[in-house]
């Protein structure tokens, strides 16, 4: 094959490169969060955008920290993290960052974690607790702006209360037997428990575990048994299994949810936007 063809093809390949950066640098009060959802909650308290370590679209459980993250951690004052096993890689990264002043806010401390599932932030009532903890940590680390933090946090808390009420109203419009779902991951367990929905099963019950055929067959049977009306895939992952399952069970709807991708899609610009979006998607699908 002539050399020049190969060089041409290589050039086309390189032309596919596009620029852009993904920098996280601590802002004003030196606050930093691990995930974009937590960053959104934190910015409700600071009143300014808070950066997140894990880039949008990367699953926090699988995240591999980059050298840049260590620099960023070194300069930060307050780190907002989820805990409950979500960020297993964090401890090693923090000790590498050697930041003696870093205050770590572990949001799930003291909250009822069930089955080792860390997705408590998906329940707005727990999110209120997260916000309170973030506020307290910021007030302690940056007393100069304590008043601002308190008033921001109070305002945001009110928004979260309104969010909960909104969700309850929307879910109330669903008939009683239209409240079962099959999901991809177990991100919705706490949300579902709070708002009276039943998660009949998850395609991938543990992150990364490959589903086996008898599990999918079980889900199909359960879907039929509980008259599940929708299967929920997630934007981040390939929806093929969800579609296969839905086809098999005769379920028409496969809908897409977010559990932690705040900030890319204009529809999910922040935490509240994400929960609203998911709620609307769920209610539409189950109607």
């Amino acid at each position, binding site marked *: *094959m002539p*050399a020049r063809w*190969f060089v041409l*093809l*290589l050039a086309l*390949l390189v032309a*596919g*490169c*596009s*620029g*852009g*950066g*993904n920098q996280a640098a601590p802002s004003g009060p030196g606050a930093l969060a691990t995930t974009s959802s937590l960053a959104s909650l934190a910015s409700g308290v600071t009143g300014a955008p808070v950066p997140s370590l894990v*880039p*949008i*679209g*990367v*699953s926090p459980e699988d995240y591999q920290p*980059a050298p840049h993250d260590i620099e960023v951690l070194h300069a930060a004052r307050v780190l907002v993290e989820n805990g409950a096993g979500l960020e297993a890689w964090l401890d090693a990264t923090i000790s590498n960052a050697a930041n003696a002043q870093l205050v770590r806010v572990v949001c799930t401390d003291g909250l009822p974690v069930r089955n080792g599932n860390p997705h408590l932030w998906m329940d707005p009532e727990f999110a209120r607790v997260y916000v309170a903890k973030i506020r307290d940590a910021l007030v302690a680390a940056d007393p100069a702006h304590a008043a601002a933090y308190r008033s921001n946090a109070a305002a945001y808390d009110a928004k979260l209360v309104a969010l909960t009420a909104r969700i309850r109203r929307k879910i109330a419009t669903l008939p009683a037997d239209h409240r079962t779902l099959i999901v991809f991951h177990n991100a919705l367990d706490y949300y579902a428990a709070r708002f009276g929905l039943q998660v009949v099963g998850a395609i991938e019950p543990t992150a990364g*575990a*490959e*589903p*086996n*055929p*008898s*599990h*999918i*067959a079980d889900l*199909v049977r359960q879907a039929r048994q509980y008259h599940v009306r929708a299967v929920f895939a997630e*934007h*981040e*992952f*390939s929806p*093929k*299994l969800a*579609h*296969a*399952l839905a*086809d*098999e069970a005769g379920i028409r709807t496969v809908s897409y949810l977010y559990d932690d*991708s705040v900030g*890319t*899609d204009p529809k999910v610009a922040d935490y509240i936007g994400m929960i609203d979006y998911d709620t609307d998607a769920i209610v539409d699908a189950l109607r």
Partner: protein
Amino acid sequence: MNELLAPFAFEFMQRAFVAALVVGGLCSTMGTYVVLRKLAFIGDGLAHASFAGIVIAYLRGFNLNLGAAIVTVITALGIGFVHRRARISLDTSIGVLFTGAFALGIFLMSRSPRSTVDLQSFLFGNILGVSRADLETIVGLAVIVAAIVAVLWRPLLYASFDAIVAQASGIRVAIVDDVLLVVVALTIIVSLQSVGIVLVAALLVTPAAAAAQLTSRFLPMLTLAGIFGIVSSVGGLYLSYFLAAASGATIVLLATVIFFASVGVAAARRRMREAQRVAS
């Protein structure tokens, strides 16, 4: 009896069985060439290379499968090209190109602000998620590959066995080699998106390696490799249902068991022949 037929009750499983049959047969027969030409880690290599194609396709907004296919084919041709021009061994060429392509994918992804998607999950399919459209693609590809191999049967065999004399006798070995690499690349891509990486890399190598133990001529080796590939895939899928285990892994384990069984049978045969010779 109903118990034994349980896996076939579901349409997604029926599609999975057809996919297993076709992909198992296709990968293991192409795998015969891969093993004899010592290209064994091309499966893993091209799968990683295809990742760059997916990333570029995603960033530019066109079809992910098409992007993967294009970059994989470019990488495959690049492997042949580098091997001939830079005069380095094939396995080194594979190593250099696939790691470079994969790293390109990671690099581009890390610089992009927009990655909301776990692109790797799109790359590495799952046999249980095979759709009707996927099946059509797999079967279509299998037919095309079979046609190409049939038409190029003799030049491929000659070039695989003795490239130098084949070239001297007028066979265009470089073209035959490139066609083979492209066909292997397409086989890998399509199989990857249906059944996943672990499966493809293993199916390319293990059934053919098992067949090599038991046959002494090319066509029987190819045929037996195909049979082993199909038995491993269909059998493995079936077993995974009852064992509640990941299908891909079960298929690979079954193929591996078949390989070791073949080694055992070959060794036993040799001992029997020795014994006969001593006796006579």
